[in-house]
């Protein structure tokens, strides 16, 4: 398909602006642009058709089943989008006086109040724009806490081997050293190894529960106690909150701070990779360190407080991805207490049902019940037949199913991580199970066939090595 630049025809364009109604101001020679500005020249119809063609070459949640593990690709309700398009929200300047933005401040206040209830935290910020950004903010809170206590020796963050890659990368950005501890044979935190890892240099532990294998850390209370007893804090990576929201609270498990992926758990769409929101909540003792401003309320009037002397400062301009927070609030108001709980239960039920169906052919790492996701391993098939996780994933593309997450978590060989979410009906899971099983049978019988999938997608398997070796990064 042609690029915008290849469709460009000199002199074409859209008529957007009127003539200038004041005298033209001129730049001095030294400040003027000398380089050409070679942006494409297109009619509105050209643009409309171009992006319609690009849309047909994209797969969204609206196109079909999307069991991408760890990403919680649930349905994105349309009322959320409607809310975020209201001019009462979109036309507000971020530096308007507080008395003219009471609606927006109320949105932030309510979202904070409800999410604190759901997570068992005392305060929340919506400044972080994504999960990794929330992680960074959370670890900064931990760093500031130790600094304020003049406990300068605490520079190590413990991360389990099953953790997302963002966890260690985040710890380093926050000036910490990473201590990685291998998981126990059951995939959970190895209590003895954790005991051996904590000490006077421990700043904290980063953990997600349920973990990336879809297992609930049954010893969670002991884990958080071990870290606390050593003087460290415990950070909750909210990537997997969808399994337990409304049922178990990170705060009650002993976590001190938490980030939430509003774009996963709270149904705001992913937009092809953003904008998201990585809201961060914390217990009362960490609240003074949150990014400024904080939103306070007095007699139903909302204020932005900038006088926060202990704050870590700002991690982004203004109040974060406000419209994303608004979408998440719309979702929480719609579902309410019972609906939030039901969403989690059905996410776990759907995952267990699909796991049961797939176990007919596939090896599954989870023993017994899983939480909202489970992990398949193709290790044996890869060794014996040359059929890899990648092959199964690519064959699914031909059937209109977005593949599960591939090759994660790293501690499982040839992994496929499956997360169906609660917004798929049983019949969708049944159909998907049939597809997964038939691909498996055909691949084992004819490995050559599966190596040559997909066949019906807009492009075939791309040459990633070539892309990295000779980078072509623009037209």
């Amino acid at each position: 398909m042609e690029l915008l630049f290849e469709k460009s025809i000199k002199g074409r364009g859209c008529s957007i602006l009127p003539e200038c109604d004041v005298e033209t101001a001129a730049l001095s020679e030294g400040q003027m642009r000398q380089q050409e500005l070679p942006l494409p020249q297109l009619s509105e119809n050209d643009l409309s058709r171009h992006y319609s063609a690009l849309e047909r070459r994209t797969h969204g949640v609206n196109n079909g089943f999307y069991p991408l593990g760890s990403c919680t690709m649930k349905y994105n309700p349309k009322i959320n989008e409607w809310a975020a398009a209201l001019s009462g929200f979109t036309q507000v300047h971020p530096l308007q006086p507080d008395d003219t933005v009471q609606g927006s401040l109320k949105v932030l206040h309510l979202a904070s109040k409800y999410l604190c209830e759901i997570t068992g935290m005392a305060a929340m910020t919506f400044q972080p724009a994504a999960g990794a950004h929330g992680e960074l903010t959370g670890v900064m809170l931990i760093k500031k806490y130790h600094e304020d206590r003049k406990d300068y020796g605490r520079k190590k963050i413990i991360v389990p081997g099953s953790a997302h890659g963002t966890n260690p990368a985040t710890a380093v950005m926050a000036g910490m050293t990473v201590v990685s501890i291998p998981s126990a044979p059951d995939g959970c935190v190895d209590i003895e190894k954790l005991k051996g890892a904590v000490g006077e240099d421990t700043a904290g532990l980063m953990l997600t529960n349920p973990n990336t294998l879809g297992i609930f850390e049954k010893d969670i209370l002991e884990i958080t106690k071990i870290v606390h007893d050593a003087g460290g804090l415990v950070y909750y990576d909210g990537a997997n909150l969808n399994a337990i929201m409304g049922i178990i609270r990170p705060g009650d498990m002993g976590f001190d701070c938490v980030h939430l992926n509003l774009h996963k758990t709270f149904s705001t769409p992913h937009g092809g990779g953003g904008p998201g929101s990585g809201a961060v909540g914390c217990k009362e003792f960490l609240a003074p360190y949150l990014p400024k401003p904080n939103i306070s309320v007095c007699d139903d009037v909302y204020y932005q407080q900038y006088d926060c002397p202990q704050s870590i400062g700002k991690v982004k301009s203004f109040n974060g991805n406000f419209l994303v927070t608004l979408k998440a609030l719309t979702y929480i108001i719609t579902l309410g207490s019972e609906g939030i709980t039901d969403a989690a239960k059905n996410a776990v039920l759907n995952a267990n049902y699909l796991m049961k169906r797939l176990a007919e052919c596939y090896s599954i790492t989870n023993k017994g019940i899983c939480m909202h996701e489970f992990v398949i391993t193709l290790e044996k098939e890869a060794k014996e037949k040359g059929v890899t996780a990648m092959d199964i994933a690519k064959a699914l593309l031909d059937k209109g199913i977005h593949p599960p997450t591939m090759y994660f978590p790293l501690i499982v060989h040839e992994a496929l991580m499956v997360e169906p979410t609660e917004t798929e009906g049983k019949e969708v899971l049944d159909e998907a199970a049939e597809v997964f099983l038939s691909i498996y049978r055909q691949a084992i019988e004819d490995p050559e066939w599966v190596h040559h999938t997909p066949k019906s997608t807009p492009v075939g398997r791309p040459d990633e090595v070539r892309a990295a070796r000779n980078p072509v990064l623009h037209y």
Partner: protein
Amino acid sequence: MGSYIPSNETQRQEMLDAIGLAVVEELYSQAPPNLILSDGPNIPEGKSELEVSRMISGMAEENVIFPTIYRGAGAYRHYIPSIVNAIVSKETFVTAYTPYQAEISQGILQSIFEYQTMICQLTGMETSNASVYDGATAAAEAVAMCRDRKRTKALVSAAAHPDVIETIKTYCWAGNAKVELIPVKDGVTDIEALELMLDTEAACVYIQQPNYYGMLEDGERAGEIAHGQGVKYIMGINPIAAAILKTPAKCGADIAVGEGQPLGMPLSFGGPYLGFMAANKAMTRKLPGRIVGETRDSNGERAFVLTLQAREQHIRREKASSNICSNQALCAMTAAVYMAAMGPDGMKEAAAQSMSKAHYLASGLNEIKGFGLRYIGEYFNEFVTECPCDSGKLLKHLESKGILGGLPIAGGILWCTTEMNTKAEMDELISLVKEVCANGIIV
């Protein structure tokens, strides 16, 4: 109660039967029983869509929407062509994930490749990433790109946006690095002071063009001085101004970053916005976040993929250049559609009109006693005037007339115009200010 769960009671029971459980609560038997909330979280009961829409509309109505805006300071109200929203609200673009599966993600991948190209065209730089969270985080990430074991200090112009400075400071504090502010003289970065500040610890110099006060910096000179001491040079730019100003590439920048909001994104109380980042070739592999590259598929056809991933956290873990995994893909697409709809002439026109109107407004305000321009020199679409009366009261008065005036800063007012401000509106503003001040209504 609202719900998005399709399975009915019978289907749920069938699923429970299949997995051999009696009730759904048994799914949580691994968790310590004392952790289970018996009554759900303490939040209100759910609502129907109609009730929700009334409640949300009510909150939207509690905000004041100003028909006329003279406030910028990092967020700019430009005209957004109708095609922009039509395209970026397409359901598939809205609901897709990061394009991991290239075969079914060519639409998103190509749109990012086109965005990267346009950012390179705008800045003159050699490479662009797929975007980051916003202008402030782009600046903080750019600073991190320049640090090494010996050079750990960032020199940041005090005339940069306060949120940008704050964000750089927060990131540097976290990364155990230093920040020093380059002082401001006559509304622009004090280049002589900068020369004295450069030492062997300095990693980079960050200059904003136009700066927070709207003034044009000597972008080229700052770069020469930085490079003279082996220090990297980062420019933070306004993408609309970039259409007519000397490019960061021509100014010698190693990295160009900025807030992409003016490229088709509404004000939205501060976000979602867009951080763009472009670099010269030598710095390309240090860029954080996603980058899309061109390749061939198994049939030899052109295809696009996420590339240079060896920099990224999911491969490198603690050795990654940054922890960033999301970009702001839909905002990047917004910027690309905006730039394509405006075209080269439309972009230059938006820039020229924004600037021309600021000069018209400035000369009008300048004629009112006490509203002189604070700084002498070239400016783009923002400028600072003195304010002889209580600026808070003046701005409140303007608000009562449906006008969001400039931003009060240090006794003066930072005004902003774009192509949205008409001559008639500006004449009205000038006479309103004249009236209240000349008649001593506000003192």
